[in-house]
C-alpha cells in the first residue's frame, strides 16, 4: 500500500512533466492552442505563489500581505544575475551596472550546457534566498505582533520595496524605474540541434520548478515542522505549552513562505521576459490571496487548482469577452474591453458564495478522490 502510494506520487508528476515537454515541441506559437502554454507557464508561477502563501496563511495562521514585495525581490535578483554581459550595457543604458556577473554565462563558460542549467538554478535559488533574508529581518520585530498587524506591516513593506527598487539612486543595481530585460528567460531556454531542429523548454522549465518547489512544500507540511505550524495555527497557547518555540516556528514558516515567493518572482521574470517593479502591486498579492481562498485555505491542491482556474479564466477562456466574440456569439457592442473583468468578478463572487470554504476546503485531492471511490463502491455494493 505504502510503496504503491509512493510510486503513484512519483509517476504522476513525471508523466505530467513529459506531457508538458511534448506540448512545448508540438504547439507552435502561432497555433490557437498556444494559449495552453501561456496558461501553463503563468499558472505554474501563480500556483507556486499561492501554495507558498497558503503555507503561511493557511497552515501557520499568520496573515501576511507582502507576497508581491517578496516576489519582486526574487524577480529582480534572478534578472540581475542572468543578464548576459553583451546585453548588460544596453539594459542599463542610463547607469553603470554594478553587478557584472551572469551565473549562466560564467558557469556555461566553465561547464558547458550543464553549467548553463546550474547557473539558472543558482539564480533562482539566490532569488528565493534573498527574499528569505528580507523576510527574516522583517520577521524579527513584526512576528511578535498580533496577526492583523503582521498583515499591515508586510503590506507596507511590499509598498516600500516597490518604491525603493524604482529609486534612481539604486539605478546601478536595479536600473531605477526602467525595466530589466534581455536576461535568461523562457524564450532562451532552448537547444538547437545540428540539423537545425529546435527543442524548446519554455514551458517545461517553469513547470518543473513549480513541481519541485511544491513537492518540497508538501513534504514540509507533512513533516514534524508542518505539524508544529498547524499547532501554532490551531492554538498558540497550547503549542507553546507543549514546548513549541513560537517565535522560531513562525519565523521558519515566514522565511520559507517568502523563499518560495522569491522563487515564484524569479519564475515570473523568466515567463514575462521582463522584471519591472511597478508590476508588483498590492493587487498581485490580492490576486494570489483570491486563488488561495478559491482553492481552499489549508489545501495545497486547492491552491494549485485555484491558481490554474484563475489564470485559465483570465488569460484564456474569457478572453473572447474582451474581443468581440464569446462562445460563438458575436456581439462587439457588449464584448469589448473590460467586460471580461465584469464577468470574471461575477464568477468569483458566485464561487465564493457557493463554496464557502473554497473548492477543496482544507482537504487534499488524493483524499477527495479516495472519498469518491469509497462512495461509488458502497453504492455498487448496495445495488448488488
Amino acid at each position, binding site marked *: 500500500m505504502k510503496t504503491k502510494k509512493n510510486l503513484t506520487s512519483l509517476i504522476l508528476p513525471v508523466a505530467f512533466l513529459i506531457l508538458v515537454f511534448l506540448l512545448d515541441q508540438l504547439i507552435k506559437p502561432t497555433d490557437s492552442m498556444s494559449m495552453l502554454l501561456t496558461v501553463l507557464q503563468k499558472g505554474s508561477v501563480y500556483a507556486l505563489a499561492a501554495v507558498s502563501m497558503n503555507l503561511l496563511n493557511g497552515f501557520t495562521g499568520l496573515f501576511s500581505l507582502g507576497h508581491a514585495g517578496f516576489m519582486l525581490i526574487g524577480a529582480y535578483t534572478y534578472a540581475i544575475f542572468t543578464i548576459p554581459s553583451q546585453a548588460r550595457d544596453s539594459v542599463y543604458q542610463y547607469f553603470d551596472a554594478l553587478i557584472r556577473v551572469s551565473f549562466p554565462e560564467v558557469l556555461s563558460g566553465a561547464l558547458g550546457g550543464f553549467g548553463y542549467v546550474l547557473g539558472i538554478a543558482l539564480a533562482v535559488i539566490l532569488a528565493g534566498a534573498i527574499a528569505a533574508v528580507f523576510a527574516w529581518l522583517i520577521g524579527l520585530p513584526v512576528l511578535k505582533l498580533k496577526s492583523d498587524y503582521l498583515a499591515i506591516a508586510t503590506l507596507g513593506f511590499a509598498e516600500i520595496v516597490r518604491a525603493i527598487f524604482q529609486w534612481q539612486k539604486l539605478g546601478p543595481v536595479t536600473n531605477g524605474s526602467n525595466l530589466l530585460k534581455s536576461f535568461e528567460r523562457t524564450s532562451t531556454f532552448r537547444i538547437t540541434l545540428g540539423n537545425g531542429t529546435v527543442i524548446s523548454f519554455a514551458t517545461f522549465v517553469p513547470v518543473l520548478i513549480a513541481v519541485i518547489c511544491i513537492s518540497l512544500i508538501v513534504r514540509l507540511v507533512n*513533516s*514534524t515542522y508542518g505539524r508544529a505550524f498547524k499547532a501554532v495555527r490551531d492554538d498558540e*497557547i*497550547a503549542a507553546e*505549552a*507543549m*514546548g513549541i518555540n513560537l517565535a522560531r516556528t513562525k519565523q*521558519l514558516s515566514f522565511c*520559507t513562505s517568502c523563499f518560495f515567493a522569491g522563487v515564484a518572482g524569479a519564475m515570473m521574470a523568466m515567463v514575462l521576459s521582463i522584471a519591472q517593479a511597478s508590476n508588483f502591486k498590492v493587487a498581485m498579492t490580492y490576486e494570489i490571496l483570491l486563488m488561495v481562498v478559491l482553492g481552499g485555505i489549508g489545501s495545497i491542491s486547492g491552491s494549485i487548482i485555484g491558481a490554474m482556474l484563475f489564470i485559465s479564466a483570465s488569460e484564456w477562456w474569457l478572453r473572447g469577452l474582451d474581443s468581440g466574440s464569446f462562445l460563438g456569439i458575436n456581439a462587439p457592442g457588449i464584448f469589448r474591453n473590460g467586460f471580461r473583468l465584469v464577468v470574471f468578478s461575477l464568477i468569483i463572487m458566485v464561487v465564493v458564495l457557493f463554496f464557502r470554504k473554497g473548492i477543496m476546503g482544507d482537504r487534499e485531492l488524493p483524499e477527495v478522490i479516495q472519498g469518491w471511490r469509497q462512495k461509488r463502491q458502497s453504492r455498487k455494493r448496495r445495488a448488488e
Partner: protein
Amino acid sequence: MASVLELKNITMQFGGVVAVDDLNMVVNEGEIVALIGPNGAGKTTAFNVITGVYEPTNGEISFCGKPVVRNHPQGKMKAGYKGSCAEYYTGKPVISPTPDQLTGLGMARTFQNIRLWKTQTVFNNVLTAMHSKSSANMFSAIFRLNAEEEKRQRERTAEILEYVGLSDVANELSTSLPYGKQRRLEIARALALEPKLLLLDEPAAGMNPQETAELTAFIEKLRTDLHKTVLLIEHHMDLVMDISDRIYVLDFGKTIAEGTPSEIQANKRVIDAYLGVAEE
C-alpha cells in the same frame, strides 16, 4: 526527597487585582499535590505563572532545585504593587523564560478550558507534542532523513494512546470526542513530552462519578507506573482526598491552609471558605 517544584513568594497582580498573593509551595519528587479553593481563588493563575504563560509580579520559582523564574515589582507595578514581600527580590536578576523553555525543562500541563489542536486527529495531537523533542532540522525533515525518529515517535504515540485508552479513536478528530476523553487526550499529549512534573488543571471537570473514579485510579497509576510527580487543581473532593499526599488551599489569592487530606478536612478555615459550600 528532592523538590521538583518550589514556589517562593509568588504574587501575580493584574492591574489592581492581586490574583495570587505570596504563594509558597513545594512539590517533591513522586508526590501528588493538590491545589484547591473556591472559584476565582487564583489556582489557574498559579498554573499559568508556573508554566510561563504569565510572568509573576513578584517571587521566584525553582525547578529541580534551580531557579527558573524570578521577578520583582518593576516599572508601573512598583508604585501600584499591592502584594506582599515587595523587596525580597529587588537586587536579584530577573528570569523570565517563555512557556516552551519551561516545558523543555521537564514539565507539561493540561488546560481547564480544553485546548486541543482542533483540526487535528487524536493521533496527531499526541504526535505533534513530540515536535520539541525531535532532533530534525527543517531540511532533514523535508528530505525524510529523520525517518527513523519519525517512526519511533509514531510508535511511541500509539503506545501512549494505548496506555490512556484512546487507541480506538486515534483517527477521529480531537473535537469529536466526548468531554471526558478530550481531557484524557490532554493528559496523553502532556505525557508525550515525557515530563517529570505533570500539571493537571481540573482533569475531572465535567466527568460523572464513574469517570472520576476511573481518572483517580489513572492518576495514581501515572505515579506508580510512570514515576510522574503530579500537581493538580480539582473541585472533585473525593478525587483530591483520595490521591493527594498534600493539599494547598487558596482563597482570594491567599494560601489559607496546607497539609495532608485529613488535616485539610478538619481545618475550620477551609470548611468555612470552601469545603462547606463545595459539597454540592
